[in-house]
């Protein structure tokens, strides 16, 4: 399955890209995606425990299944206002 990954703020800067395409085996979950992203972008390691993840704009948890073609956003702690 293919996913479009979006990196924001510190995650974007550490990854060095704002988005990337990710290929995973069918049936992968959010944790699998994070593991794959971490292998690709080791600079994200220290941030990982602080990242929330949204799939198509909705927050998801580590065990949630991924959808084919979904947009997966890596969201550091927020600081709007």
């Amino acid at each position, binding site marked *: 399955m293919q996913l479009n990954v*979006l990196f*924001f*703020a*510190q995650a*974007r800067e550490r990854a060095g890209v704002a988005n990337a395409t990710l290929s995973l085996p069918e049936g992968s979950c*959010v*944790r699998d995606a*994070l593991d794959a992203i971490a292998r690709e972008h080791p600079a994200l390691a220290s941030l*990982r*425990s*602080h*990242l*929330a*993840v*949204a799939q198509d*704009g909705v*927050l*998801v*948890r*580590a065990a949630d299944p991924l959808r084919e073609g979904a947009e997966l*956003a890596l*969201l*550091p*702690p*927020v*600081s*709007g*206002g």
Partner: protein
Amino acid sequence: MPSLTHGPLDVAAMTDALRREDCGAVLTFLGTTRDHHEGRRVARLAYEAYEPMALRELQALEREAAGRFEIAACVIAHRLGEVPPAEASVVVVVASAHRGPAFDACRWVMDELKRRVPIWKKEHFEGGDAEWVRGTPLPGAPEGE
């Protein structure tokens, strides 16, 4: 309806839009760029958002505010990109028949906005270095379960 803008926020237009004949109170909160943070001089701020999700969250906040408090309307606008000192990065306007709920709602919206909306702020200090502001983790960070 909330908005995300990449230039100055039109505070007067937002406030005027919520002056209604059935309301006795209009409260306008401006969050503005401070020129200092933890003892250092801030030259400017830069904001970044996951825009479609941020807009949906802001809209949810407007609706929830109208449901939780006795108010007639709530409108939120957030600026993105660079914001110089003393300019507004966020504006919340609340209109209500009586003033108490306007204060309660406006304060609640700002508290929730800082907790729930995917927007990030980077402080650019005098001298050239910059830092992302330590923020609030969104609920459900996968590793935090």
